[in-house]
């Protein structure tokens, strides 16, 4: 999946790339980690992001980017192995533990992360965050869902809309 060093003969130190957040913070990471992003992978394969250049990411702020890269660095080795085949049960358990811990964060960070994962096309991170948000919805009543996701209590108009919906789609609420 993630591209190995593209045969430039640089077998020693891992190739590094620089990413620049929307607020102009520079992050230097291994190309293999950044390549978990489908969006970045092409640029990196083309030799971009090295030297003093850096790849600007105008949609991702530095707080979010550092969180995204934390995920990428942790997941890069497994991705380089093509995922599961070589991974031991211990490795996988460790990744799972990391993932659970990783999304145990403030909701605002969660939404920034899912947007960034979407823009950068990091599949694993997208589904990790989507699952986390889904878990916050599961098994709850409409009002509980609203409160959990930080929606204000409905206005009378919204309440009327909710009631109409619950009438129309009664089966969903049984």
């Amino acid at each position, binding site marked *: 999946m993630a591209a190995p060093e593209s045969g430039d003969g640089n077998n020693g130190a891992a190739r590094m790339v620089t990413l620049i957040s929307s607020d102009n913070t520079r992050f230097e990471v291994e190309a293999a980690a950044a390549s978990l992003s489908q969006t970045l992978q092409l640029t990196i394969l083309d030799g971009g992001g090295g030297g003093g250049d850096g790849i600007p990411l105008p949609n991702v702020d530095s707080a979010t980017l550092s969180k995204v890269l934390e995920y990428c660095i942790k997941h890069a080795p497994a991705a380089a192995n093509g995922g599961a085949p070589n991974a031991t049960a211990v490795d996988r358990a460790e990744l799972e533990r990391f993932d659970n811990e990783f999304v145990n964060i403030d*909701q605002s960070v969660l*939404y920034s992360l899912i947007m960034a994962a979407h823009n950068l096309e990091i599949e694993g991170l997208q589904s990790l965050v*989507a*699952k986390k948000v*889904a878990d916050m*919805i599961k098994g709850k009543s409409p009002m509980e869902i609203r409160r959990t*996701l930080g929606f204000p209590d409905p206005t009378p108009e919204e309440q009327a809309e909710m009631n109409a919906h619950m009438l129309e*789609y009664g089966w969903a609420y049984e």
Partner: protein
Amino acid sequence: MAQSGGEVAAKRPNLFPSGEDRLSALPDDIIVLILLRLDTIAEAARTSVLSSRWCRIWTLLPELTFRKAADYGHIRDVIAATEAPPLRQIRVKTNDDAPDSMAAWLPLAARRLSGVLRYRNSVEGHYEDDEDEDNTTIALPCFGKATKIVLNLGFLALALPSSGEFTRLTNLSKTRPVPRHMRAQRHRLLAAVPMLAKAPRPASTGNGQTHRPLGVSLGDGSGLCLRIAAAPY
């Protein structure tokens, strides 16, 4: 994405945005990803109450899962309501014992589905003699675009379409000993579907005690796989 400072993670900008603002900023694709992680389509539909932004997004889901009795009566309505371009998967788990309720949604599912149908009926029952089949028989319509159909019918019997509509069918297998009426179905299918009729026949099942899967493969590997899991008798 409204953050500007950002040197301290999770520090809020001056104005506190509500969860509603943040969630409403998410594109449909992402909300679909979230809803796909819920257990059933009913649960996804319930998120409509969040805001007008979320109201119809559940109808974009390319995978539909029905698990509870309450969902079951509305499968047809749900399939009819969905607007997902290709419907990748329909999964039904039920203990409903009336084939006619399945008949209400199967034809529509057959038209809409471009992927996988998984149906599992866990009703307990006994095989009756062939004469009693009528009220426990499910008529399988043509799933022209389906790539895989897995039916676990419990005690229900299956009637296959008589015309050659399963032109993409490349595999028919049963992983358990096959009851008498199912054996008859298999022969009907072989007769009904031209591609299958040309395929080499699997070894005879003899007295029906064999546990070997009955497999018919045409070898092009890309077509419809119909797997009928028959309950033991």
